[in-house]
């Protein structure tokens, strides 16, 4: 699968980046392509392009603060709190695989 995502936590200092890495590692370990945009206190990094969003099978949005989802309106979006991705990124990916049948 091609997975893209966005992470955004309350303070935008730590969780945003840790969770981005955890999702990335879990996705790649399961053989998927993955790119995660971080929206932190320093602004957005690793920004998703329109092409990447268009090509993605699924969009993971892990956040504790509001994230503008207009870019993803025609996509399958998995909308979860930061804690879900922090707790068990592997099972997050496995659940998505099951739901999408891939």
């Amino acid at each position, binding site marked *: 699968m091609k997975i893209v995502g966005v992470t955004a936590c309350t303070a935008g*200092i*730590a969780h945003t980046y*840790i969770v981005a*890495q955890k999702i990335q590692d879990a996705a790649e370990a399961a053989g998927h392509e993955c790119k995660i945009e971080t929206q*932190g206190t*320093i602004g957005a990094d690793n920004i998703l392009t329109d092409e990447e969003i268009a090509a993605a099978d699924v969009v993971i949005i892990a956040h504790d603060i509001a994230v503008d989802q207009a870019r993803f309106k025609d996509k399958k979006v998995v909308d979860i709190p930061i804690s879900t991705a922090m707790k068990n990124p592997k099972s997050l990916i496995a659940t998505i695989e099951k739901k999408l049948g891939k």
Partner: protein
Amino acid sequence: MDLREILSEDIIDLDLKGTTKDEILHELSQHLFDAGYITDIDQFVKDIYVREAAGITGAGNHIAIPHGKSSAVKKITIAVGRSEHYVEWESYDEQPVNLFFLFCVSDDEGFAQNHMRLLAELAGKIGKDSLVEALQGAQTPAEVIEILTA
């Protein structure tokens, strides 16, 4: 810029003595104060608790990532601590923690964007299981810096 610019051996303590969350926060803050990163321990710890009140900072895997923006911060950095004993801490996996990353962040938003970027890069590394495993086995502060900057 290099990650080594925000890491320093004098704020890495692999033998923390504290047995409670509060003791650990004060112990690491004392190191930050002694090394000149913060001007006021009480104010800094108070500001950390403001963030603690907003949500869990136990990241699972026996790691805690307390962080706060504080006017007491002179220089952005990250203090690293490890304890021989587990300490109770609110955590996503409900396990106690023994590895601590105390983020030391100025409350001046426009200040030192470059350093904030390095801090974000370090935070990403804390999300890597293999790296955390290596840190659990590190013997010296120099080794910790080596692992985090590899």
